[in-house]
């Protein structure tokens, strides 16, 4: 099991992802530099971490989506490799077309850093295999542009193929307007591609992998990935 952690100029949760995966979960990892278009077959899972790649200039994730490493990730994903895009990573995946839809500015136009509750809607994915159906994970968000939007057809496809993995919800798992922190359509917090090997999510699981940080629900996601790879 080996993780790759991509670093763009302006990425900042690379180190947090490294701490979660390498220090807490004791998994092998390597940082991947954005300028390299390289063979990623030595990895099982590549993480696109959060941050402000290229300062989010133009649009969040837009410039990073054109960098050499993204061509490598495209190839890696086609061969079935797991890709986890967190926050800015989710934005980059949408910009590069690996995931459908867009992430717009939060509906209230402000940055938000706070804990959210996520309802796990599909446990038959490598990213959620350790979760129970309907389980509520407590995971923080930290973004200004996390307002997920997609057209009717795409949404219909996502819903019918069960590709919406996480929805913002209340503590009791109710998907309500009050629990939606950014205006995302259908309370979407995370989706997968049609093959199910690319997950994009706005919340930060790497920030809640120790009780010292106020919660450990992020471990469910990383441990799901590790166990899924072990099973294969």
């Amino acid at each position, binding site marked *: 099991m080996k993780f790759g952690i991509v670093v763009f100029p*302006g990425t900042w949760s690379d*180190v947090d992802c490294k701490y979660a995966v390498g220090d807490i979960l004791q998994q092998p990892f390597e940082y991947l530099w954005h300028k390299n278009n390289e063979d990623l077959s030595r990895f099982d899972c590549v993480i696109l971490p959060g941050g402000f790649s290229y300062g989010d200039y133009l649009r969040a994730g837009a410039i990073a989506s054109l960098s050499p490493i993204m061509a490598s990730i495209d190839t890696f994903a086609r061969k079935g490799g797991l890709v986890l895009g967190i926050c800015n990573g989710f934005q980059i995946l949408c910009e590069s077309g690996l995931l459908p839809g867009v992430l717009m500015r939060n509906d209230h136009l402000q940055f938000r850093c706070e804990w959210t509750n996520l309802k796990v809607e599909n446990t038959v994915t490598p990213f959620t295999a350790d979760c129970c159906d309907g389980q509520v994970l407590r995971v923080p968000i930290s973004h200004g542009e996390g307002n997920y939007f997609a057209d009717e057809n795409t949404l219909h496809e996502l819903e019918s193929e069960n590709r919406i993995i996480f929805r913002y919800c209340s503590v009791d798992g109710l998907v309500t307007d009050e629990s939606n922190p950014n205006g995302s359509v259908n309370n979407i917090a995370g989706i997968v591609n049609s093959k199910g090997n690319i997950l994009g999510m706005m919340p930060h699981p790497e920030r809640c992998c120790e009780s010292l940080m106020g919660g450990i629900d992020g471990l469910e996601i990383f441990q799901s990935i590790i166990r899924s790879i072990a099973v294969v």
Partner: protein
Amino acid sequence: MSLVNKETLDEIALTVEEYHLIVETLGRTPNALELGMFGALWSEHCGYQHSKPLLKLLPSKGDRVLFPPGQENAGAVDIGDGLAVVFKIESHNHPSAIEPFQGAATGVGGIVRDILALGARPMALLNSLRFGPLDDPNNQYLFKGVVGGISWYGNCIGVPDVGGEIAFDSGYSGNPLVNALCVGLVAIDKLAKSTVGEDGNLIILVGSETGRDGIHGASGLASRTFELQESMRPAVQVGNPFLEKVLIEACIESVASGIVVGVQDLGAAGLTSSIVESVYKSGKGVYIDVSKVHLREPNMSPYEVMLSESQERMILIIKPENKNRLADLLSKWDLPWSDIGKVTSDGRIKIYDGKQKAADLPIKTLNEPKLYRLKGNLSSEVEQARLYPLSSIPLPDSSPGEVLRGLLASRNINNKEQVYRQYDSQVQTNTVIAPGVADAAVLRIKGTNKAIALSTDGNANYCYLDPYRGGMIAVAEACRNVSCVGAQPIALTDCLNFGDPTRPEVYFELEWAIKGIAKACRVFNVPVVSGNVSLYNETRGKAILPTPVVGALGYMENVAHRTTMGFKSEGDAVLILGTSRVSGAAKSMAASEYLILYHNMLVGRPEIDLKLESRVQALCRIAVRDGIVRSAHDVSNGGLAVAIAESCLVGGLGFSGDFSISGRWDAALFGETQSRIIVSVPPQMVGAIQKLAVSMDVPWAYLGLVGGKNLIIEGLIDLSLKQLGESWKNGFH
């Protein structure tokens, strides 16, 4: 005075006397560039002309202090395990008054580079903010702009914003205070210095292109009062947080590679101040060719290049043979850079534009401005306000419960979640205690069991009525805050925000606030390791309230031994440490939020007993460390009832009081007597804390029990948490 007129001197904030002194020292009249450089370096902002003689009064030595204040760009403190914590607070008041978003944003950027200049990784930000009342649309604009700018810059660079304070007073209308504090962590053997090393070393300018922004920022904005705000907007810099983030990584990598001799940030007065300061400290000279500087726009004059305050720039000093290695490192990060000159031995700064000489000045003269030691005096207005007979103030028409709700809803006390949730407080995954739940933020130190705690404090109302005691209380409160989470205060940084020091009443405030800070530091045995002074904070000829802001750094041996302010468990006993009874003596209302809000009066004279304060804090720390208390919260703005309400609201548990009051209920519930901490204690531990209190000579009193869904003080207050929460969270819009 033949070659220069008064307008020119005004623009660069030099006095006629200073000009004559320059001419006399040089033996000739300076040219325009040379005069501009003097204006910048002899400004209050860079030269500390009025404050330097006073700042010497602050104790700055300590076992953990790695070098004296002023030697490097920030203070550094040894926390063991070969690690140093670097920290400093700095103001960006005047730029924020003119362009709040960019002013505040570049304030954050600037303080981060101070930390970076020591080779440290910035690990947290705090900010201490003051605004005029928000019912004035201009203050709304300033408030939203400042918060937006801090959020925009801090979030983008991946440094968590973990705390600070916000207060409002009409004196800050049009002159908000924006004080930013940054903390960094570095291995002691990797600490960078601001030295320039030997002759021949290269001066490498790294980062953003130099443009025409921010010229006269130090002399024009920071060092005098001003009214023509819109026309001064070009003197405010524009930030690029993305470039700052890249600069952070590139500088840390460069320093870690071992090829960097010295590092210096570029802040106020740009290249001029940065180069002159570091060359001065090393006793060297320097040759600069401004035609080598990478520019944002063509045809900039040497004057513009030397005084530009373009952001996101650093100076790295290297040996010539390492130029290629540095070039490789910087190209990895696609950072522009230029080799702009070299270190010399002649003690002068010689500036060339290609082959043409543009300036030639002695470094020593430039860096040793005329200092002023003035005479201050207490204003009669304050003298009268102090003597006001507090006992003659009538009880309010409102009930105690109504007053409590009113205070909780007031701008200075209410919940600031709507502000701090716009800041990323968790990135870098070290934030163990985030904003809103305790008196100080706590960050763990990865790879150890240790943690640090951080808090800023400064009550301007106290300082207005008595700057000496106000200065002492600022230190006491900042230290009390870190003690409440269980940390030992080990160092302070201060930001002294005052009006025009040439007014005797302002100079009096500055002098006595510094003396008060110094006194408290000596009693608590905590040094001031860094700081900043911001004078000339005035609007329409009136100075702001004197506002010294103190940032405290606390040390925690074991991160597990910490607590927050919220009540944790039904049935816990609630005690107050620092007093043996709930006194309703009228004098406790001095300078209180209650008097201001309900009686519209800023009167009385605050008091503090520093020795008692020191014992109370020590008791609290031991009680937290030993797990005797489950929560700790200091009594500050709004007094006892507000402190209890906050512990209820954060913990989601009620309180049932069982204590008697001597004297007035308003003074007892809302008075702001210092040196008091409210703790909740498991029933089986009550004996232990009492024993400890007796052994440490700290008075205490029993207040009641945690439990239920109401805050009840028999015969006075009975309010549900829901009601209290509605008042507390009404927030900012």
